[in-house]
């Protein structure tokens, strides 16, 4: 393919978007998106939740058609009508939310629509599995390519999407928050792969709410606000503070403001919890006013423990008590009644009824109590959910909007709102700020800190080490289904947490620490 040249001598950017706009009915998701990505460059795209980043990505991917504006790929005007068009033009996209086919195997998902064919045009499965394993080796993870996608953790799903995208041999690779669910190790591997792709002359777009990642990986950064382009900077010539203030339009408070709270009685007591093949002999307590962080590598079994405690999954041995009362096994409803709340890791499948409205989602756990004489009205649900939407600064045009139409970060806020509305005694929160922008993140942390101050016990799972270290009074580290460390706030450092997280892992220790 001949590379079209623009004005003399200059090679055309791989991707060029100018004043691109896109509306959904009355909602202007993107007013004026501008982005220019050079070959051999990793370009960061940052902006608050709902700024229009994912909408821009979906236009490049051919999921949406733009209403107006210029869209060029390698100097040529393009107009994709489908994701197949963009793929054949050399664009690979990792969407913000994994989009795997649940009933197909991992390998089939990776090679969807381009299965390697053997003799007699039959699908060459051996080759498919070998190539999948090679891709996973490159990313430094072990996922069985033969298993079905259904039931994989969000992180594993994200890794499969990454494997799929890097195997496409694309000229342009767009990654919409690929790291939101990953922990240090996987992020480091992903970055190594991204850098090698860059060095091969490909163009990459990287979206993230974690600035350390942006500064670590990218060379250029474009800021968006309210659906419009704000500015573009060379990473070497700017600072985090400058980016944040352009993004938010104001200064943002320090990130992890956990204030010391009076630690009270034991709220959650877990003794000898075990589930075959998932986790073993887990015992710990969470006290009123305390935030206990559950750290570890992706796949260590943290989410599995949380799910068992809340009762969406069963367990084989051990017991769970809340305020001295045994919590029955495998009954989320009983757990809720006992005072538990659970923000799961997968908001699209588990946290939200994605096709349901904002109001119904927020009221979905408390609605039993909103009924008068057994009768529940939409007005009561709206009235009860509006203050929570406001408290979490949910961005939506009306309470009857479907959750599916909201940006990822705003969906996360709805899940948190839904559970805080239940006035819980124990909040289990799996990746509290996955996909949430800086301003709101500080807000969520402040909220969690306030709630702990009022005596709420919080069990927080996070793959973001700074978040764990900043928020937790105590850090429990899980490695391969076992608790390997219990570190008090004062003693916790990135080094000792990571050491405990990889203690019995046979793989080499991380080459680089992407999160400090």
């Amino acid at each position, binding site marked *: 393919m001949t590379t079209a040249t623009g004005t003399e001598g200059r090679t055309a950017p791989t991707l060029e978007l100018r004043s691109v706009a896109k509306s959904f009915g009355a909602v202007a998701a993107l007013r004026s998106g501008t982005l220019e990505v050079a070959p051999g460059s990793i370009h960061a795209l940052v902006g608050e939740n709902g700024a229009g980043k994912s909408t821009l990505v979906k236009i490049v991917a051919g999921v949406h058609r733009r209403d107006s504006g210029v869209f060029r790929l390698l100097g040529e005007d393009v107009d994709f009508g489908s994701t197949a068009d963009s793929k054949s033009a050399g664009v690979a996209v990792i969407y913000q939310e994994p989009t795997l086919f649940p009933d197909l195997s991992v390998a089939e998902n990776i090679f969807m629509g381009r299965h390697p064919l053997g003799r007699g045009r039959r699908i060459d499965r051996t080759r498919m599995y070998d190539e999948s394993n090679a891709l996973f080796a490159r990313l430094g993870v072990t996922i069985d390519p033969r298993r079905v996608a259904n039931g994989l953790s969000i992180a594993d799903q994200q890794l499969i999407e990454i494997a799929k995208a890097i195997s496409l041999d694309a000229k342009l690779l767009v990654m919409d928050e690929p790291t939101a669910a990953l922990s240090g190790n996987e992020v480091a591997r992903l970055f190594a792969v991204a850098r090698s792709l860059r060095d091969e002359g490909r163009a990459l777009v990287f979206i993230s709410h974690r600035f350390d990642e942006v500064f670590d990986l990218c060379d250029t950064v474009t800021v968006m606000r309210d659906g419009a382009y704000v500015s573009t900077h060379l990473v070497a010539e700017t600072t985090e503070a400058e980016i944040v203030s352009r993004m938010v339009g104001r200064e943002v408070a320090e990130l992890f403001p956990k204030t010391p709270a009076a630690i009270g009685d034991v709220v959650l007591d877990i003794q000898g919890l075990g589930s075959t093949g998932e986790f073993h002999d887990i015992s710990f307590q969470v006290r009123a006013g305390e935030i206990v962080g559950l750290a570890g590598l992706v796949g260590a079994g943290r989410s599995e423990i949380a799910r068992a405690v809340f009762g969406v999954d069963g367990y084989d041995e051990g017991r769970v008590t809340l305020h001295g009362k045994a919590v029955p096994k495998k009954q989320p409803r009983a757990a809720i009644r006992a005072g538990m709340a659970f923000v799961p890791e997968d908001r699209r499948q588990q946290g939200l009824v994605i096709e349901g409205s904002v109001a119904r989602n927020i009221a979905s756990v408390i609605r039993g109590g909103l009924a008068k004489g057994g009768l*529940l009205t939409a007005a009561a649900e709206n009235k009860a959910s509006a203050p929570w939407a406001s408290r979490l600064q949910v961005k939506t045009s009306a*309470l009857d909007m479907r959750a599916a139409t909201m940006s990822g970060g705003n969906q996360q806020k709805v899940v948190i709102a839904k559970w805080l509305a239940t006035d819980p005694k124990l909040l289990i929160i799996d990746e509290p700020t996955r996909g949430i922008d800086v301003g709101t993140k500080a807000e969520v942390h402040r909220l969690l800190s306030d709630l702990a101050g009022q005596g709420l016990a919080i069990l927080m799972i996070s793959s973001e080490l700074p978040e764990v270290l900043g928020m937790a009074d105590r850090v429990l580290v899980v490695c391969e289904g076992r608790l390997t460390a219990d570190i008090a706030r004062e003693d916790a450092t990135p080094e000792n947490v990571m050491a405990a997280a990889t203690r019995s892992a046979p793989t080499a220790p991380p080459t680089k620490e992407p999160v400090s």
Partner: protein
Amino acid sequence: MSTATATEARTYPAYSRNLAARLLLNREAAVIVGLVAVYLYAMGNVPFFDGPLTIFNLSKEYAPILLMALPMTLIIITGEIDLSVASTLGASAAITGVLVVEHDLSLPLAALVAILVGALLGALNGFFVAYVGLPSLAVTIGSLALYRGLAEGLIQDKRISGFPEGWQDWPTERIGTSQYPNILIPIAVLVVLFALLLHFTSFGRGVFEIGLSDEAAHFSGVNVARTKLVLFTLSGAVAAFAGVYVALKSNSVATDTGNGFELKVIAGVLLGGVSIFGGRGALHGVVAGVLLIAVLNSALQLDGQGSEVIQIIIGLLLVGSVIASNFLPRIRALIPRRAAASTTAPQTPATGDETRKVSQ
């Protein structure tokens, strides 16, 4: 700084569309308009349609369909289906007949037994669907045959008739001097109860949530299995109640009583705007859907059309309505866009905002 943002209280309008749009731009409104139009047209143009017996016969005929459509609505909204309702109706009619005619049991007692058995049969379906995890289509195709077999076993190839004189004529007597049979009284009560259950209780919200995502419902503490068990049990009980009515109405019971009713019930529910994929629907739409089929049927019959023509017309209407409900949202989504824009569904499932078939 962050405290400043915390105090910025946002307010949210409750609805994104105005009242008129919400009330008029939906499937339920379309069905109601269709019903009124067909009714008015028939009143003016079909001979004898405006006669005193039309409404009376139509109500008598379609009462069991409407009854069974009520729990069926909730079941289909959860994404399941119950194909065994007509067989349950048949079994219940047989039980009533055998108990009353052959064993001289009093009617209320026989009816109670029949309804309890019906609930049990429904619960059996529910158990296999909710607790064993089998697909309801398979389970209820099986019980469709099984429960019909039950009726056949009870009455063999006899035809039970001759219910003793008494208040067994009550269901088909007129309410006062009106054109309506008494059976409409319990139906009205049940319509109201089911509408309240579906649209104005926490249980009903759970029904919708299960249809949209049973995993998310489970994570919010909705007891998915128990909800389904309750719905199938209700379906069995209501079908059995309809069976008692049918036995009394025709004053006889045979092995084929109610044969094929399940298709009319499901047709009415789908025509009324309930999504076969689950998660969407409203009870008033279903009532209108069943009535639309009833009025069409009766008008075409009076017009002298053969049953094959009637079947074809109702079949076309159903297919058309399903197509319309799948394409209308897409067409509506197209309107504000550029004329050239085509609706290309993303190749990947749900990339963030891709709408499911259920919209609105």
